[in-house]
C-alpha cells in the first residue's frame, strides 16, 4: 500500500517513437503516471500496447535508433532522467531503479558465474571490495531462497532451473536496495507453482525494503494478486488507471471490460468467454479517433473522429479513463 503521498517517480506525457522502414510507430503516446513509495503499480496491455517500451524508457534503455524519445519527462526524486548522459545513468540504473526481465536466461550472462554477475553490481554501486561483495552476494542468494547458496554461487546460469534463475535475477535487482523495481513479465515463463513462489518472494522483499514495484504483465490473475493500482494501456496510450479493486469492480473503459470478460477463470463454470472482436491495432496505421473504436461495442460516431481525453474522477478513490462514453450508465440500458 502507498506509504506516503509524495510520488517517488513521475512520468509525464511520455512520447516514444520508433522509426522503421515502413513508417513511424508511436509506441508510447502521452503516457503519464505517478509511482508512490512501497506500492505496486501494474501495467496491463496486449502485445504492442507500449507497456514494455514505457518501462525501458524509464531505465534509459530504449534502443536509439530506431527508438526516439520525442517528449515528456520522467522525474525520479526530483531528478530528470530523460536528460541524463550514460555516465549519470550508471548512478541510477541498478542502484536506484532496478529491473527484472521476463527471460532470466537471456538476461543473465551465460559466460559468467552467478557470483561474478552479483558482485559486479555491489562493487560498482556500493564500493565494496571483492570479499565483501562475495559475502553480500551469498547473503542475497540465501534471502531469495536458493538452497546451498555458498556452493551455488559458483555455478553458471545454465545450471539453474527457470525459477531459480529468476531468483538470481531478483537477488541481483535488490542487491543495492533500489527504490524502484521494474518487473517486466517476471513470471510469464514460469510454471504456476513456481510463479506463486516468486510472487511471494517479491512481496516479502517489498515489505522488507519498501521498494516501489512496477509490474508489467498481461495476466489479470497476477495483477489481482499483487498490484495496488493498475494502469491499462492500449495502442501506446493510457486508457484507464485506478486501484486494482476499482479496475476489477467498476471498469470504465470498454477495453478494460473486454479484457476482464475474456480472461478465463478456473474457479468459474462453463459460461462462454466474451472475446473482444477484431484484431489488435496496426501501430503503423492506427484507426482514427479512439484507437479502440473498431473493436468497441459502445462505439458511436464521435469515437471515430475524436481522440478521447483522459477524464479524472476525483472521488474517494481517483479513477482516470479515456472514453467518450459513460459505460456505467450504458450497462443499465442494455
Amino acid at each position: 500500500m502507498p506509504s506516503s503521498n509524495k510520488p517517488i517517480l513521475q512520468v509525464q506525457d511520455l512520447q516514444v517513437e520508433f522509426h522503421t522502414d515502413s513508417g513511424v510507430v508511436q509506441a508510447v503516446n502521452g503516457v503519464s503516471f505517478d509511482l508512490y513509495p512501497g506500492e505496486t503499480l501494474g501495467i496491463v496491455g496486449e502485445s504492442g500496447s507500449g507497456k514494455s517500451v514505457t518501462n525501458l524508457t524509464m531505465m534509459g534503455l530504449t534502443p536509439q535508433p530506431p527508438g526516439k524519445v520525442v517528449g515528456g519527462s520522467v522525474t525520479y526524486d526530483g531528478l530528470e532522467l530523460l536528460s541524463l548522459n550514460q555516465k549519470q545513468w550508471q548512478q541510477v540504473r541498478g542502484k536506484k531503479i532496478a529491473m527484472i526481465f521476463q527471460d532470466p536466461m537471456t538476461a543473465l550472462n551465460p559466460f559468467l558465474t552467478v557470483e561474478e554477475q552479483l558482485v559486479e553490481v555491489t562493487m560498482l554501486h556500493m564500493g565494496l571490495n571483492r570479499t565483501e561483495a562475495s559475502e553480500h552476494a551469498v547473503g542475497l542468494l540465501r534471502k531469495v531462497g536458493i538452497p546451498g547458496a555458498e556452493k551455488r554461487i559458483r555455478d553458471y546460469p545454465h545450471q539453474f532451473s527457470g525459477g531459480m534463475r529468476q531468483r538470481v535475477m531478483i537477488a541481483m535487482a535488490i542487491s543495492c536496495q533500489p527504490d524502484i523495481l521494474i518487473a517486466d513479465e517476471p513470471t510469464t515463463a514460469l510454471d504456476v507453482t513456481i510463479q506463486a513462489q516468486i510472487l511471494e518472494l517479491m512481496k516479502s522483499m517489498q515489505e522488507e525494503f519498501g521498494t516501489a514495484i512496477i509490474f508489467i504483465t498481461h495476466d489479470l490473475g497476477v495483477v489481482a494478486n499483487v498490484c495496488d493500482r493498475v494502469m491499462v494501456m492500449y495502442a501506446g496510450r493510457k486508457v484507464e488507471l485506478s486501484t486494482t479493486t476499482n479496475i476489477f469492480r467498476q471498469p470504465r473503459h470498454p477495453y478494460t471490460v473486454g479484457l476482464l470478460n475474456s480472461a478465463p477463470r478456473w474457479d468459474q463454470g462453463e459460461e462462454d468467454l466474451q472475446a473482444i472482436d477484431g484484431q489488435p491495432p496496426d501501430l503503423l496505421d492506427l484507426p482514427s479517433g479512439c484507437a479502440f473504436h473498431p473493436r468497441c461495442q459502445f462505439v458511436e460516431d464521435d469515437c471515430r473522429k475524436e481522440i478521447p481525453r483522459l477524464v479524472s474522477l476525483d472521488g474517494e478513490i481517483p479513477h482516470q479513463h479515456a472514453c467518450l462514453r459513460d459505460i456505467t450508465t450504458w450497462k443499465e440500458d442494455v
Partner: protein
Amino acid sequence: MTTPLLQVKDLKVHFKPPRRGFGKPAPVIRAVDGVSFDVQPGQTLGLVGESGCGKSTTARAILNLTGNAHREGMIYLGGTRIDQLSEQRMRPHRANAQMVFQDPFASLNPRMTVDKIIREPMRNFDVCKFDSDERLEVVRLMELVGINPRYMNRYPHEFSGGQRQRIGIARALAVNPKLIVCDEAVSALDVSIQAQVINLLMDLQQKLGVAYVFISHDLAVVRHIAHRVGVMYLGRIVELSDADELYRNPRHPYTKALLSAAPVPDPEQNVSHQRVKLEGEVPSPDIEYAGCPFAERCPDVLPHCQDVRPQLSDDVHQVSCLLYEDD
C-alpha cells in the same frame, strides 16, 4: 457408452540420452511413465501439468511422432491399434488425427500462401477430386475459422498471431479429422485473442463433432474447453475426472496445490484464498520412484508413500493417491 475414439493404455515413453564419452550411460528420461485415458467422439480431454510433466510427449506419442524413443503400451484410434504401425501404414490414419501447435509463427511455412498451406494436407489425402473443388474447400475452411477468403494468396507473416493460429486450425480441419491434438494452442496469444480462438475451437466442435486432446499449462483455459481433465505430474496422470468435478472438488494433493497457486482475476478472491504452498520444484524425470513421485513435496504425505506406488482408481473421479486407497 459409445466406443472411445482414442484409447491410450499404459503408455510409456522413455528417452535414452546419448552416452557421454566412456562414462556411465546417462540415465533414462521417463517422460511418460504409464498413462491411460480414453477420449470419446466429439469430446475434449484436457491434459494439464507443469513443464516436464510429459503432456507434450503424450500428445506426440498419440500421433506416433516420438521418433526413436522407447515406447510401451497401446494406442487405439477408432478401434485400430496404431502404436506399432510403420510410418507408411500410419499414413491413412493421419487423416483422422491432426495437430495444432503452440507457435503460430514456427508452424506455418513462411514461403507458402494460406491457400497452399490449407491445400497441402488435402492433396496428401486426396480429399477432393478436382482442383476447383479444392479451391471451394479452402474458401469454406477459411470462412469456417473466421478468416476472409480474400486473403488466401497472402503469406503467414501478413497475419497476426491469432489469425495465424486460425490458419493452423483450418489446415488441421482440411482432412476432416475426428481428433485434433492441440498442444498449447492458445498459450502464445494475448488474452482477448486467446478467448476468440477458444470460442472458435468450441464452435467447431459443436458444428463438426471433432474431438480434442487439449494440452495446456493454463488451468483456466482447460476448464473452459475440456469435458474431462487429466492432471499430470512426472509422466503420470495423478487425477482424471469431469472438468467441473475436478475443479470444484480436487482430490489429489498436487491438483489442490496447482489450483491454489493459479491466480484468479479477482482481487477479493485472492484475499480470502487459502494457499496450499508447494515447496521446491518438479524433480528431474530421470529417477525411478518406488512410491509416489510427489511424496517428497506432498503436504499430506503418509509414512508409506515413499514405498508404495499408488494406482489410478477405477471410479468416475479417478485419483492416484494413497490417501484415497484405503476406503
